[in-house]
């Protein structure tokens, strides 16, 4: 049933780029029970999702990249598609994994000031490192053009992006699972099956770890490759068609 109040709540969430229930109440008025009832309905409809654990829960609009994309995400997506240096700020480009590692170490100190539970910082950076190192593992010597990854962080909006211009997950997985037909199937294999894209080497745990961290600790990941994306949250993993094509990979984490 249409509810004007619910639509106002949704619009506020979407325009704020992520907000708390308290901010919704302050902005729109109404009592807590009513607000949470509308939030529950919006989540049930798949239009809103939440990140974090009480009392740090924030609500986000589940909208594809266009229109409501954050500034960081827009830069990441544009770099993923074009590789143009205008989209990267100083310090974000990590040509080798040593540079990525140095940035992660600095990032840890910054995140400890924002995220009050150190264990959540360690898990988050573990996921970032696994995604980033995956890019080097599968693309060294095989980059489309620019080697390395773009690691971008927006501490205010609590977002991290890890982007590469490598082969993409489909090309990697297809080498070892020839029956995989597209990027969507490749994503499912990458995140759920212990399989090595660098066979005959025995590997394949990294993205399973990333999925576990996202699902169990209140983070959100949207992982783009080719014409597909994988959304992983506390409710599980959904694979969908992507609104735009990413030649390599783009990971967008909200914490």
């Amino acid at each position: 049933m249409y509810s004007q109040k619910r639509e106002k709540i949704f619009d506020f969430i979407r325009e704020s780029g992520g907000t708390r229930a308290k901010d919704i109440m302050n902005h729109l008025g109404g009592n807590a029970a009513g607000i949470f009832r509308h939030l529950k309905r919006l989540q049930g409809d798949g239009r809103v999702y939440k990140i974090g654990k009480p009392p740090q829960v924030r609500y986000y609009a589940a909208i594809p990249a266009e229109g409501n994309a954050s500034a960081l995400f827009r830069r990441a997506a544009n770099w993923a598609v074009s590789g143009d240096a205008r989209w990267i700020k100083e310090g974000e480009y990590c040509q080798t994994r040593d540079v990525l590692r140095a940035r992660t170490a600095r990032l840890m100190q910054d995140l400890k000031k924002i995220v009050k539970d150190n264990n959540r910082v360690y898990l988050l950076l573990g996921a970032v490192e696994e995604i980033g190192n995956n890019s080097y593992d599968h693309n060294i010597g095989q980059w489309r053009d620019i080697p390395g990854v773009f690691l971008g962080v927006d501490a205010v909006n609590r977002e991290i992006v890890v982007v590469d211009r490598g082969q993409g997950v489909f090309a990697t997985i297809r080498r070892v699972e020839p029956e995989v037909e597209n990027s969507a199937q490749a994503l499912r294999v990458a995140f759920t099956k212990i399989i090595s894209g660098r066979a005959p080497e025995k590997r394949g745990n990294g993205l399973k770890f990333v999925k576990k961290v996202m699902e169990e600790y209140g983070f959100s990941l949207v992982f783009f490759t080719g014409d597909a994306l994988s959304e992983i949250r506390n409710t599980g993993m959904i694979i969908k068609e992507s609104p735009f094509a990413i030649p390599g990979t783009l990971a967008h984490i909200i914490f």
Partner: protein
Amino acid sequence: MRLELGKFGNILTSRPAGKESYLVAQAYSLSKTKGEEKIEVDFSGVEVLTPSWADEFLTPLISNYPGQVVLLPTNNASVKATLDILRLRSP
């Protein structure tokens, strides 16, 4: 003997780093083990551990010293999640 993983760094990530660390451990620490001596792995000082690093260090350690490796308890969530993914267990 005790292997203190914190001495390899506080952020233990990437396969090349794990592999290199195990090679050094083999050359300088593990060569001193006597017979069936227990090898305790101490995670103190480790802040971030990922499966990539752990698979290059703990997996060959456990394989090369069957029945001797003891993973000491830890409260670090990334260590626990990594051990869970690799199906290794602390007591």
